[in-house]
């Protein structure tokens, strides 16, 4: 099995210094479901000592977290020209 990190290594990105998705920290703390941890196809959400961390660098821009998150996270597409560059979409 190819790890998700290796698979993301095959994808070309131009990463903005500003994240385009921001989980709302205080809401994440009290969220019981934390679906972001498994529905994100890039596995970009991480739980460490009860806190949710998100890394926008490998974002595939699918929008699954936006639809699935019960707490309505802040979600935008990356700025023009930034983000993922698929070649075999």
């Amino acid at each position, binding site marked *: 099995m190819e*790890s998700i*990190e*290796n698979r*993301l*290594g095959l994808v070309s990105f131009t990463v903005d210094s500003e994240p385009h998705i921001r989980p709302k920290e205080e809401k994440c703390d009290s969220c019981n479901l934390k679906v972001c941890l498994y529905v994100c196809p890039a596995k970009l959400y991480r739980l460490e000592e009860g806190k949710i961390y998100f890394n926008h660098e490998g974002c595939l821009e699918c929008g699954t977290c936006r639809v699935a998150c019960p707490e309505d996270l802040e979600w935008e597409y990356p700025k023009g020209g930034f983000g993922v560059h698929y070649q075999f979409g």
Partner: protein
Amino acid sequence: MMKALVFAEKADHFNRISSKLKEMGFEVHGLSFAEANADHLYISEPNYDYASITAAMEKISDDVGPDLVVFSSTKLGKEVSARFAQRKNLPCITECLNLEVEGSSITVSRYSLGGKTIAKLRTSLPGVIAVVADAIEPSEQSFQMNIQDFEIPVSNQIRTVSREEKKREAVGLREADVIICIGRGLRKKEDIELVKELAEKLNAEIGCTRPLSHDYKWLPEERMIGLSGEKVSPKLLISIGVSGQIQHAVGIMNSKTVIAINTDENAPMREHSDYYVVGDLYEIIPELIRNL
């Protein structure tokens, strides 16, 4: 016997190139600014003007009739090789890493696609190439060593107002047995002190990736390891906080053993490492210094 004509402004480059050509069976003619190994050598006063050198090489070439004209692939060498080739209406390949002759054609290797690949190109002789002299292992060869003085014709296409040697630290990267190479994983310039401490313990030279020397200017340019910088071949290279983009990786490929420390489990550097440490350099290096 096939004849080669060489120009290199540095004697060391000249000798590396001429030994390779001799090994391949060429009779080696050349122009240099100091004594160097060749069968027939023209020595002139140093001159760094492209138009003058082009004219000189044209003159010698007309006398010698070489099958292959070889320049050292320095900035000056590349500039002159192309101008010379155009004047003689010949093909020219610069930045050659390796060359082989087969009958009346020559095959060279050079980086392509920004260093992602190595292309092998074949062109028929006569031709012009510019060779990365440092990529050639010099060998012992015997030469006829016919030497004569030569006066380079003076051109005034452009006028030199001033020339200033770049200030360089004495850097022994190329000779070093142990090299520590740092990259953007280092958070600030002051943190280099930590690396220096480790380097002292190991008697190692410090090198870096392009951003550190060219963008942040934390270290002088001559410490940059990579495609456009130094290509090193130490026994041990310790890479710290280096992501391992190919443009850098080509500079360390001849290292015997590579250890890398990186926070990113899947940085491209991993493929280029014998031992890959996933962890925080700020925790590991002090511990390592204690253990050495």
